[in-house]
């Protein structure tokens, strides 16, 4: 089965959004789940990406990704009509969605993408949804309008103050938790952001859910590459997660493990960029 790219655009520098034909995944996917894509069968890397939306009628799923390494950059260079050889999913346990009362959804950078279907689901289940979206600067903020449409309240923060408030996400999160009754916090973004958002929620005695994006290979609970420490126990993100109680995740360990291939990835990306520049990639 091939998976055609039905639409695609660059949301902001190096961040892409695309709808991809994957009828089986589209029919089964629920908020919080992810896929593993593999551009070509022989040599390509397997890339785990959270599903940012589904269109069952169209048989397509929406993916949003940042070109951080060679494989994600290569994916970014594909065009509408191109095909991915492999899309596996939906993987992971779906988000537990119910009417909790008030839910604060905290998104950081590219984390807004997986957060969107969860926020939508929470809204549909009857929750009051307050969204806090953070980005390094205005040009890197994604999905603002989509969140506006489904949030009772939307707060934007940027690191440099180029848009919204100049703050990190934990500042408004802390204020909200102080000024009103919050029943649940969902935080998705860079590990460091999830770590501090979790600490903030814990400070106010509010349950917090985070979605982890570790290194993965198979996604079916076979390789153990995705392991994290949660509450002192080894857990496998692909089958036990990707969502966990943010108060129990050992983020420091996880951040170190995610650096495992930094050097090799950097080298591969440089080589790829160089090839693109001199036109050897085609």
């Amino acid at each position: 089965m091939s998976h055609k790219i039905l639409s695609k655009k660059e949301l902001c520098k190096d961040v892409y959004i695309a709808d991809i034909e994957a009828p089986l995944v589209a029919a089964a996917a629920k908020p919080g789940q992810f896929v593993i894509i593999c551009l070509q069968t022989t040599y390509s890397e397997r890339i785990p990406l959270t599903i940012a939306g589904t269109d069952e009628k169209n048989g397509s799923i929406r993916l949003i990704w940042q070109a951080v390494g060679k494989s994600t950059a290569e994916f970014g260079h594909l065009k509408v009509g191109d095909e991915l050889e492999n899309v596996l999913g939906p993987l992971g346990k779906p988000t537990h969605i119910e009417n909790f009362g008030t839910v604060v959804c905290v998104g950081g950078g590219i984390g807004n993408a997986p957060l969107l279907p969860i926020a939508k689901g929470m809204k549909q289940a009857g929750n009051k949804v307050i969204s806090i979206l953070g980005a390094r600067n205005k040009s890197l903020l994604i999905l603002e309008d989509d969140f506006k449409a489904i949030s009772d309240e939307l707060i934007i923060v940027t690191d440099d103050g180029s848009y919204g408030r100049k703050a990190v996400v934990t500042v408004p999160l802390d204020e909200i938790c102080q000024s009103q009754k919050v029943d649940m916090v969902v935080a998705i973004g860079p590990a460091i952001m999830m770590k501090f958002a979790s600490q903030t929620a814990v400070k106010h005695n509010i349950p917090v859910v985070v979605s982890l994006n570790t290194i993965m290979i198979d996604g079916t609970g076979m390789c153990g590459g995705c392991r994290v420490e949660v509450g002192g126990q080894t857990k496998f993100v692909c089958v036990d997660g990707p969502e966990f109680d943010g108060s129990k995740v050992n983020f420091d360990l996880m951040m170190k493990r995610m650096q495992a291939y930094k050097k090799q990835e950097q080298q591969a990306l440089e080589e790829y960029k160089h090839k693109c520049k001199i036109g050897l990639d085609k």
Partner: protein
Amino acid sequence: MNDKQLLEELLNKHKAGTLKPADRYNIPPQAMPQQDGVARRSNVEEVALGYNETQARLEALRCLGCKNAPCMEGCPVRIKIKDFIVEIVEGNFQKALGIIRENSLLPAVCGRVCPQEVQCQLPCTVGKKFKNVDMSVSIGRLERFVSDWGRKQHENSTPAVAAPTGKKVAILGSGPGGIVVATDVRRAGHDVTIFEAFHKPGGVMVYGIPEFRLPKAIVQEEIDGLEKMGVKIIRNFVAGRTKTVKELMEKDGFDAVYIGVGAGLPMFMNIEGEHLVGVYSANEYLTRANLMKAYDFGKGADTPIAMSKRVAVVGGGNVAMDSARTAVRLGAEKVYLIYRRSEKEMPARVEEVHHAKEEGIEFHLLRNPKRIIGNGDGVVNAIECLKFELGEPDASGRRRPVPIEGSEFTIDVDTVVVAIGNGANPLIGQTTDGLALNKWGNITVDDNCKTSLDGVYAGGDIVLGAATVILAMGQGRTAAAGINEYLAKK
């Protein structure tokens, strides 16, 4: 006298009926030709090269053709061993292949990876005579010779398929069990679809067992053969998530299902430092290297793997040997194998242990890791081990290793590969109501490999725990017979 002349002389006697058992005992056991121990450290090509015709026929002549054929008892799928061996003697390789194929559908695989020294070759009369299992007839190598001969002649003809029955069978997982079920059920005329989670079918034979032991082209031929028979293969399909077993049966109209999803969830030692960067489960290490071809990273392949100089592999099974030997091929200068019992207790195939030693892997027996030590950046620096001695036999009958207090020592390493086994794959169990599992999470089945659900069969590692290719195949045959019978009545 050279080998050819010896063969001729022996064949003449054999034909005349004057070749006595004593003569057969005198035939030198034929060594397996293999790649040079140094050269192969830096390539991924197959190590054991296979017998030539002369060697095969000489080895076959060592078989006494015992009336009671104890070897057959040792074979989990009861291949008619002495019958195929005598055909090799006669030079009727086509016939020999036919005889093997009656019982085993993957001889090119089994000939390479079966632990023959504890199966068919263990009770072999010749080995018994010499009180040395290494002197037994090399049944596995002969099986390999015949199947490789067939592959060269393109004699692996696709089995005939009966008229369509209109019944549909889903096979979850494309390991050896799944392949065998697909073949046998398709032969009966049913419409068969294999659903595989990975982007390449073949199970452990493609992602676990390395190229240097089992060339992937062999597995691919088997997959091609299935497709030629009309078996459909859907890749990138996680049963339980993409669709559940129930959905396949109730919505998609599958009349029967075989679950062959293999082992899952690698075990760790639960010691300090197992989360450090550079600590792998063997599954991850081997999958990166084999399936994702990380040995070609930077030369086409996009999946990275640790570029290790000093590697410790923990465990004593095939998986541990494969990991250690893969580390060598990825350029490690020093590879240590740490196992908590003695060599005698190692579950690995003897040949793999030999090969590992030839390739310079250093064995640390009766040693077990106590903790893994990291540098300040969370990267592996060293492994601390404890020495053991053998105590009283435990439940498995093997002498239990007991730690020697105060015997700690450390080895500097940058990578640790943990190869101490796997638990059960949890996905199907979690998503299939009413499917009975044992306390370890393995699916429970009856003598026909039927599960607690009607029309649902299971076999291989998901039932047996991490086992072997041949046992998965054997269960596959049983399950296929069960499915065919069930569908005939349905």
